[in-house]
């Protein structure tokens, strides 16, 4: 039987079941949050750091969670903020690749092209890296997490209209990136 968010919160708010409840919360959300953070941050090691910091923040603040928003949007908000802060601290120049770099990259894709699925995955990963932090978060929430715009609005603290515009823009950027890679092939 799947445990509900309300049951997790009830366990966490009781001193005797706090640790068990927190473990259940991690079990329930670790994969989704990992995926969301990874799509923003890029590599596994950084994702691991950000995910751990996210859960530590969650643990420290969950007793103050009043249930005015949904638990999962609250968790995604913390994860998104942590990942955005991390990206801003480690801001790297993510302008479009120089043509020489693009050549190296397409070679690596060709090597992996034996399976079309792997090729698409690699293209998506690389395309995501080109997006600014907030757009990465929006694309990840909508495309990978399949979140509705109202929940996304709670996570991002941005209006639904602005989120739609940003998501559509992100989709176009990714399309362009994929087309660009296809031209080089």
């Amino acid at each position, binding site marked *: 039987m799947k445990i509900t968010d309300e049951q997790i919160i009830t366990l966490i708010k009781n001193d005797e079941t706090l*640790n068990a409840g927190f*473990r259940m919360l*991690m079990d329930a959300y*670790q*994969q989704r949050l*990992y*995926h969301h953070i*990874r*799509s923003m941050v890029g590599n*596994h090691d950084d*994702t*691991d750091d950000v*995910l*751990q910091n996210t*859960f*530590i923040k969650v*643990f420290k603040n969950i007793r103050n969670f009043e249930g005015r928003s949904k638990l999962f949007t609250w968790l995604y908000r913390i994860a998104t903020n942590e990942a955005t802060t991390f990206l801003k601290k480690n801001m790297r120049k993510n302008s479009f690749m120089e043509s020489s770099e693009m050549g190296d990259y397409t070679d690596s894709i060709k090597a992996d092209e034996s399976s079309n*699925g792997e090729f*698409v*995955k690699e293209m*998506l*990963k690389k395309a995501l890296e080109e997006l600014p932090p907030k757009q990465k978060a929006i694309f990840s929430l*909508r*495309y*990978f997490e*399949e979140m*509705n715009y109202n929940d996304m609005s709670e996570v991002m603290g941005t209006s639904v209209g602005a989120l739609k515009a940003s998501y*559509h823009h992100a*989709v*176009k950027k*990714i*399309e362009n990136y*994929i087309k660009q890679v296809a031209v080089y092939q």
Partner: protein
Amino acid sequence: MKEEIYKELENLDSALTKYKKDDIYNTSGKYFDEMQKSVLNKLEKEEKSSKIVSFGINKWMMGIAASLVILVAAIFAINQSSASSDQLANNEIIEYLSIYVDDIDETDFARYLTEEDFSLAEETTINPDDIEKYLEENIDDINEEDLQQLF
């Protein structure tokens, strides 16, 4: 893919509708076990260090409390001794002052004078010759500003 998400991409004429959306970031199950352990260890360490800090504060506060007790006791003792000083004989006070007169600061001494003492001092007439003599002897030590205040 949810229909809502698919239709939106279709409306955008996006090729993303054609791709099978797998979990693009694979991780082993062991990773999450290790991650959970690491999070719980960090929290445990933080809890321990916060206990040490709070214990430190308690000791510190106990130190302040002890100091306050000593201070109150000292004030009580001083009050007791000043109460007994009321009972000192005049000759004992005079004897003490004659020995330590050079160590006594005039301003400190003035604090112990009553209004009556001051009015007596004002009434005391000083011989003008004595003043002249004093000024001649101490002219180098007299500050101009002090003189202006006098006149």
